[in-house]
């Protein structure tokens, strides 16, 4: 059994998992809203990349320049006209609302792209570079983008006024209002940012997976596991959680049958919630 393959594969998948989970993490961290429409955003952004590639021959990396602003605005609109209306209601209201948005997104996708399983073939899809083992270029790109996203996100949250406002909002919403932080505006931008980050994950995943309107659900479940594992309000925790999950998934084949591999994320989810509900980074960590 090649340990190198398992290790490299785990690191690459960890990066993909992280890029998919950032959006969910930041929205929950700041607004305490579980964005069930996250899976729908992953799916719609994959279709945006597919459409731009198929009809205009735009590389998916370049399509990020279209997808990210579009989904940022979409996220802001969802927050302003839907989520904001029920912010003071019990959490079940936002869960159901965003689940409804996900269903709506699925049906829109069925209407526009039908239920066919689609994908696109990049000219460099199967070109490989040897990093211990042969690694394809799209996976390297996904890894690099994920790392760059982590760094930029951390810098944004630590060093900019808006980032600091988001962190403040995650700690005490009422206090933010008292000190003059435009809470609703920051919440809108946070939801926009979270949706744009989900779109980033969707576009990156579309480079290696085929997809249909049902795409995204499986990744949503993994994202839950990752943010619980890393600490629900920690950006750094997301990448650590993603890496831990992918390492355990990959190396588990040495001890358990492959068909139990998908169970690992759920076992981890339950274990962490029971044993250490604050996640790996504990209580102190915030976004």
């Amino acid at each position, binding site marked *: *059994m*090649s340990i190198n*393959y*398992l290790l490299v*594969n785990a690191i690459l*998948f960890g990066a993909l998992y992280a890029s998919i989970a950032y959006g969910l993490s930041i929205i929950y961290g700041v607004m305490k809203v579980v964005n069930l429409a996250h899976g729908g955003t992953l799916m719609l952004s994959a279709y945006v990349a597919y459409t731009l590639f198929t009809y205009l021959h735009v590389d998916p990396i370049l399509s990020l320049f279209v997808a990210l602003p579009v989904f940022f605005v979409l996220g802001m609109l969802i927050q302003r006209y839907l989520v904001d209306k029920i912010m003071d209601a019990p959490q079940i209201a936002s869960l159901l609302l965003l689940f409804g948005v996900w269903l709506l997104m699925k049906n829109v996708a*069925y209407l526009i792209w*039908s*239920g*066919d*399983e*689609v*994908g*696109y*073939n990049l000219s460099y*899809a*199967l070109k*490989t570079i040897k990093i211990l*083992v*042969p*690694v*394809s270029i799209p*996976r390297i790109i996904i890894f690099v983008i994920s790392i760059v996203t982590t760094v930029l996100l951390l810098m944004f949250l630590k060093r900019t006024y808006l980032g600091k406002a988001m962190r403040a909002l995650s700690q005490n919403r009422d206090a933010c209002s008292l000190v003059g932080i435009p809470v609703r505006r920051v919440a809108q931008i946070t939801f926009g940012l979270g949706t744009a980050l989900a779109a980033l994950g969707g576009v990156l995943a579309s480079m*290696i*997976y*085929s*997809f*249909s*309107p*049902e795409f995204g659900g*499986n*990744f949503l479940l*993994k994202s839950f596991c990752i943010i619980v594992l890393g600490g629900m309000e920690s950006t750094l925790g997301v990448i650590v959680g993603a890496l831990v999950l*992918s390492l355990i*998934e*990959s190396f*588990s*084949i040495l001890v358990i*049958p*492959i*068909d139990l*591999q*998908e169970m690992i994320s759920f076992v981890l989810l339950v274990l962490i919630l029971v044993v250490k509900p604050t996640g790996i980074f504990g209580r102190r960590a915030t976004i």
Partner: protein
Amino acid sequence: MMRHRSSWKTGLVVLLVAAFCMVSVAAVYAADVIKVGCCLTLTGKYAKAGKFFKRGYEMAIEEVNAKGGIHLKNGKKMKVKLILYDDKSDPTTAVNLSEHLITVDKVNVMLGSYSTSQVNAQSVVPEKYGVPYVNGGGASSFIYARGFKWIFGTLASISELSYTEMTLLKELIDKGKLPKPCKLALSWENNAHGKDFEAGVKKAMKEHPGYFKLVLDEPFQKNTKNYAPLLIKVKSANADVYLSDCHFPQFSAQHKQYSEMGLYHKFVSYGARGPESNARKSLGDAVNYLVAAQWWTPLLPYPQSKAFAKMYKEKYKEDISEWYPALAYETARILFKAIEIAGSLDRKAIRDALENIEFKPAIVAGQVIRFDKKTHQAHYPYVIVQNMPGGKIVAVYPKNAATGKIVCPMPKK
């Protein structure tokens, strides 16, 4: 006063006579048409297949109606009317609509939906009411292992698919194109579909001792996204042949990783996957030389198969590349033939006719479709195709259907 009462009575009589005439006309009309009930996946995740199935059913119905309908024993010819609903690719909706078709629309017989899950759920209803039901969309053998009396399936089983591939492998071993014993790595989705596939492989291994050595037999979950751990096991197994049973999304993700990892086997097959146009769109040249077993392909050289492909192109102004409309067409034709053999709309007579039918010339490989007396699932060989460079696909097995020779061992990239 008397005059008023008389006209009231006359009016009532006229009304009753008119109502009687309307009922009679409706009854006569209804009796002249065979009502075929069907719900299909016209929207939802199986919309593509549903659209193709609708086309196949419509072609068969137009064909039979153009000849004046189905000939019955009483000398009458009855036309066929399709009552079609959209089950939205949802098993619960398929069940509800089937109930509606039988109890409200009073259909005589039923044609099935697409996909194992839809057929599995829906088929309970015609079984309950004793309505003959034929489908061309559910292949998993567990649908037919329930001992149902009214349910028939025209898709040959998945175990037959892997068995046909193993028969081809045996031929290749005999010709010296593969070593003997041939080391086999096998992976399959951990569900009824995959278990059927594994069963076919093991049946062939038992029948041909000394030919194969199973070096890996690994189930995987359908919702797996990360295939590297599985493929690392495949690589470590050092097999000559890799067989994997999966649906399209799993095939696409798995083969992409297979190619990225630079794996190589002399013969690779993902069951029925590989020749789809979407496969080449998403995987490019990585699909070259993959081998796939199909229920039907336009490459089949039989006149009836070619005539169907031509008829399809004329009607829908596009080339046929998928098997769905062909099996739908054949499914409807078998049902109509059974009605003709029964000679009436007596449900039991139709069921008995289906049980004993030997439908030929069929457009599938082997040109004959008959149902297993116990399970009611059709038996016929698959046609095996291979992807060639440049997007060409050739039929390589069985011999009487071959349009080209198999390339084995696959060239190394």
